[in-house]
């Protein structure tokens, strides 16, 4: 089956304010794409639409021509969305719930019958020794890797990652992206990144999003500084009138965790 992810005229609003408008683009199977843009550009909404977590207001998101269904697209959320009181292993096992009968899923993360896939992923993430540690005792980088493992354990053909390098120092960002590169293999990868430098260095294609619209969609090596400046300048004020701090290419630029709408 083809794993082409297609956005076709997708619009989504929350409480009357459009988050994304008329988005249209396609991502081929195995492609690695970075989404960049200022805060409030609609990047996280785009990922949530792609994962099928929220429905479109108009337009269509499809994978291989079919609507998105559970198990085919996995979204790696921020590390802050892990359950802090539970172990790294239990958090990763939560990613397998969709593949289990409902009654087995009630116990599996706590009393796992087949923890091997989750342990293998934690091993790949360099977290074997932390498998039993509560995630609230882990560093930001470790939590981020656990969150990635939670998505990857679903073994999806398409992986979406929401700012996997957020809150991380440059060295840890590189480590997380190295691990991501390695474990993603030939899957499709669509990642939101605030760090435009990393987006250009490590991805094949970059989509610039501002004000809910695609501003550019180009091979990474043809994304110029001027284009990025235009992207961030095109949306320099946020909804509350404050100026968006747009300095592309730095490691310290982080979106706040988006306010949550359903």
């Amino acid at each position, binding site marked *: 089956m083809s794993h082409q992810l297609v956005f076709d005229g997708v619009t989504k609003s929350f409480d009357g304010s459009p988050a994304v408008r008329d988005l249209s683009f396609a991502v081929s199977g195995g492609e690695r794409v970075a989404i960049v843009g200022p805060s409030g550009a609609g990047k996280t909404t785009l990922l949530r639409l792609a994962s099928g977590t929220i429905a479109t207001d108009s337009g269509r998101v499809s994978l291989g021509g079919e609507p998105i269904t559970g198990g085919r697209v*996995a979204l790696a959320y921020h590390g802050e969305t892990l*359950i802090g009181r539970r172990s790294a292993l239990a958090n990763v096992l939560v990613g*397998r719930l969709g593949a289990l009968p409902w009654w087995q899923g009630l116990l599996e993360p706590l009393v796992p019958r087949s923890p091997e896939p989750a342990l293998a992923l934690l091993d790949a993430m360099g977290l074997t020794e932390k498998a039993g540690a509560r995630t609230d005792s882990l560093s930001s980088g470790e939590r981020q890797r656990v969150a990635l493992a939670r998505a990857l354990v679903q073994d999806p053909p398409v992986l979406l990652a929401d700012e996997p390098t957020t809150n991380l120092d440059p060295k840890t960002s590189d480590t997380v992206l190295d691990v991501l590169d390695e474990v993603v293999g030939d899957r499709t990868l669509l990642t939101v990144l605030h760090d435009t430098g990393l987006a250009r260095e490590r991805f094949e294609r970059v989509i610039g999003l501002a004000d809910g619209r695609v501003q550019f969609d180009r091979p990474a090596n043809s994304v110029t500084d001027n284009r990025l400046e235009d992207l961030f300048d095109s949306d320099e004020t946020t909804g509350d009138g404050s100026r968006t701090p747009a300095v592309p290419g730095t490691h310290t630029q982080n979106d706040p965790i988006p306010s949550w709408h359903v």
Partner: protein
Amino acid sequence: MSEKTTRANATGAHRARSTLWLLAFVAVLIVAAWIANANPLAVLTRDAGAQMWAFAAEGFPPDVSREYIVGRSLRDGLLWAVIETLAISIVGTTLAVVLAVPLALASAATVTYRGPLYAGASPTRRAVGRTLNRAGRFVLSFLRSVPELVWGFLFVTAVGLGPFAGVLALGIHNAGVLGKLYADFLEDTDPATTEAVAASGATRLQTVCHGMVPQVSATLASYTLYRWECTIRSASILGFVGAGGIGYYLVITIQRLQYRKLLTAIVAVFALVLLSDHLAERLRTKLA
């Protein structure tokens, strides 16, 4: 209008609102104190002090006779009443938790009709969930609005005198209290965390178990332990209506003016409360 002026206006409006709230609170307090006949000076008069002292002095020395503490067959002494009170509180709280969990799930909007679990739900599904939610909230309000003593009286008439009536009274009333607390905490969970679990393909029940409950499990445990402490105090007075426990000793010694025995019973209740405080604190530390 300059930014500085706008900020100054906003600060002024905020202060005015705060002052209004404070004045409203003071007004409500004055009215409430008037209705409650609150007169702090009444307890500070020399006569009031002498009366209280005379009453307290009659309790000394407390009665610690073997006959009163242990009784003739162990089961008819004060010690057994203390044990019975503890037992009533443990079984009553457990019953409350068992009843509160399903009621809380029905009464938490984030479980029944709102939030990440219902992102793609139909309007009909949401309407059904909202109705269930309101019904759950109504039941919880009813259960906790009837005082434990009244439930105790009701269950004494239903199952007869004894500790089981106390268990039922505590269980039913506290199901209302705990159910509301659990539901409120579930509504305060982080939707992003819940969504991240739901996005893995988990069912709603699985998402509640592994996405919502673990976010607040320490708080739930802490409040449950607090309610257990409360049930010990409540169990101490349920004996007033014949629902077992140390309350029987409190009421009987008051009625018979046996103040030395009354003081011993009060000290026993105090020791029980201290013990439960200590145990609950240790459990809380373990659960944190």
